[in-house]
């Protein structure tokens, strides 16, 4: 019996590395990509279609050969190579995420006159109902993100209560993090109408220019054996970078008729940079317990500061996710930071900006600089007080606004499947940095007015904050963006690729703007909405 069960399980997940030379199959729905979006779609649509094929490049476990296919030909020096920032396997990048969830804000979806290329073709109200179910998929429940509810439930003080400028928002994390294939993969394994092919890489499609249908998708394994899938509907869920990469390949073949009529495929690439541009100076961490996180049931709930939307609007800035991380004297030391800035500059034969201030910091903090040297060279701490609480670091998540010249392009080199590797052109614009500083100024004034601490804005460390210390969230968005029309986007409000009847895109590549919170909850909410649309339009009665 156990043997029979095993055979059946193996049957529903077919190892594409072992298929014959040319395998052909037909289905109603073909999902390409078995990450978060692909798995949610399979779950949502399994009962609506008689036959679904899911194609995944990786397998259930990490596979270095599949992973290598992510390697970029070149990328901006600050952006991590997708070879390391993404995971090519069932469950996708949920296999290494922190499970940080918060919904986008209504303002994120609006056209903001002060932000070029902002505005989605759908409003928050069209998505809000889907967030509850998305919370279930993400393992954080359907109890929402209302700060008043959580403040009461956890008996914690909302330090921004009553403010017209600042507000507390909520992040929820499943403990342990949800790995989507482990958690939601049963449907893929056990449904008679779903067949999953692993180890197969999308390389080609057949698009009928006359009737605007994609008729066939071709995927090959490392040995060159090919699976051809014909389907009524195709949905690509390859991730925020690969969706664009494959669409660029197919647009080369089909004269830019697949959502690239306005030359938008691959453009508007956005990340969530995490500058450490400010600190919150405070006397002790206890008062801030709402922001330090508390486990309740199987999740952790933590507050963070953001600006009220009315202030973002009136000040014409972008919002920030400002969490608090308790930090020691050592961690907040100016001297250590200035030491690095001076060392780097001297090594290059330069004089840094604010040279005098850095020298002063170094002198004033010489004990902590010695502490740093001792820890690095001798793995030994010199001063106990270096471990004393000094305040909070604020590893903020910022909104990067959409720019056409931040883009993914095809390079000249090819991967093992014969697909062009990609080049990533990316830059954090000065206007985005300026809005971060503006938002921090507003937050600093309000934190002072609320008398909950004093903020320190690290202008003098700007060269490092925006340089070697700039972190990234590995959130890749915008490269097949949603828009009203093909002049400025790739897919319509229902994720359908402009110029096609039956090709859809799932995942954060369709985001028109990136917001200032982690995207996965919104990816899932949008995917459930997409599934509802597909059911309404295509499913049998």
């Amino acid at each position, binding site marked *: 019996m156990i043997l029979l069960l095993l055979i059946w399980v193996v049957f529903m997940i077919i190892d594409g590395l072992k298929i014959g030379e040319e395998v052909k199959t037909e289905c109603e729905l073909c999902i390409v990509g078995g990450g978060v979006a692909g798995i949610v779609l399979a779950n949502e649509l399994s009962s609506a279609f008689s036959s679904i094929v899911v194609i995944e490049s990786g397998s259930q476990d990490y596979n270095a050969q599949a992973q290598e296919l992510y390697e970029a030909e070149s990328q901006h020096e600050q952006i991590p190579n997708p070879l390391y920032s993404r995971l090519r396997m069932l469950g996708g990048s949920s296999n290494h995420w922190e499970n940080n969830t918060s919904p986008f804000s209504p303002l994120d979806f609006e056209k903001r006159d002060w932000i070029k290329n902002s505005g989605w073709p759908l409003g928050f109200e069209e998505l809000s109902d889907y967030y509850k179910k998305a919370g279930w998929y993400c393992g954080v429940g359907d109890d929402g993100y209302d700060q008043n509810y959580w403040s009461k439930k956890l008996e914690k003080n909302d330090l921004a209560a009553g403010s017209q400028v600042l507000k507390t928002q909520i992040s929820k994390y499943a403990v342990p993090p949800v790995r989507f294939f482990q958690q939601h993969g049963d449907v893929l394994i056990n449904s008679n109408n779903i067949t999953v092919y692993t180890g197969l890489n999308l390389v080609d499609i057949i698009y009928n220019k006359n009737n605007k249908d994609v008729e066939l998708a071709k995927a090959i394994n490392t040995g060159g054996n090919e699976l051809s899938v014909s389907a009524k509907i195709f949905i690509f869920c390859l991730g925020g970078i690969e969706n664009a990469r494959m669409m660029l390949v197919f647009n080369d073949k089909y004269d830019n008729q697949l959502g690239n009529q306005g030359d938008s495929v691959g453009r508007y690439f956005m990340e969530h940079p995490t500058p450490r541009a400010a600190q919150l100076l405070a006397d002790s961490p206890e008062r801030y317990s709402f922001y330090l996180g508390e486990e309740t049931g199987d999740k952790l709930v933590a507050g963070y500061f953001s600006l009220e939307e009315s202030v973002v609007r009136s000040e014409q800035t972008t919002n920030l996710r400002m969490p608090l991380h308790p930090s020691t004297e050592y961690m907040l030391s100016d001297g250590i930071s200035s030491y690095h800035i001076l060392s780097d500059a001297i090594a290059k034969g330069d004089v840094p900006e604010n040279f005098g201030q850095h020298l002063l910091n170094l002198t004033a903090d010489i004990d902590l600089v010695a502490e740093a040297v001792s820890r690095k060279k001798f793995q030994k701490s010199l001063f106990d007080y270096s471990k004393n609480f000094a305040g909070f670091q604020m590893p903020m998540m910022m909104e990067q606004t959409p720019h056409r010249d931040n883009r993914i392009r095809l390079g000249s080199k090819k991967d093992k499947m014969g697909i062009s590797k990609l080049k990533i052109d990316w830059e954090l614009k000065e206007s985005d940095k300026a809005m971060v500083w503006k938002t921090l100024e507003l937050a600093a004034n309000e934190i*002072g007015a609320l008398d909950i601490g*004093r903020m320190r804005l690290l202008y003098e460390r700007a060269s490092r904050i925006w340089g070697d210390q700039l972190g990234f969230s590995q959130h890749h968005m915008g490269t097949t963006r949603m828009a009203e029309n093909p002049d400025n986007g790739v897919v319509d409000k229902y994720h359908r690729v402009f110029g096609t009847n039956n090709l859809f895109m799932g995942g954060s590549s369709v985001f028109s703007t990136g917001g200032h919170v982690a995207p996965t909850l919104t990816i899932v909410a949008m995917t459930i909405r997409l599934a509802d649309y597909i059911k309404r339009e295509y499913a049998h009665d």
Partner: protein
Amino acid sequence: MIDLKKRQLIKMAAALPLFNAALVSRAHTEKSDFSVSEINKVLDAWLKTMSLTPQDYLANRSVLPGSADKIREMSVEDFRSGKTLHVNGVVLSCTEAALIAELASALS
């Protein structure tokens, strides 16, 4: 020994919350070079950017010795109206900055 004026200033400044209170307390009790240098940074920043002296600023705002509530009220008003002073990046209200700057000049 600290004279009466300095004592009054310290008392006023010590009414300030958090960061300032900690600084003033250190200057009062330890009088370490480090603390004094931190307080002097406030004075330096004040002199570089403000037209009024700290004393005049406080007088104009009717901040009197011992009026802790008034200091906090003025401080909140400053923050809300953007009357702030950046000292090595730390955003202080002008009222609290004036108090500390005045203290620094009294201690020097």
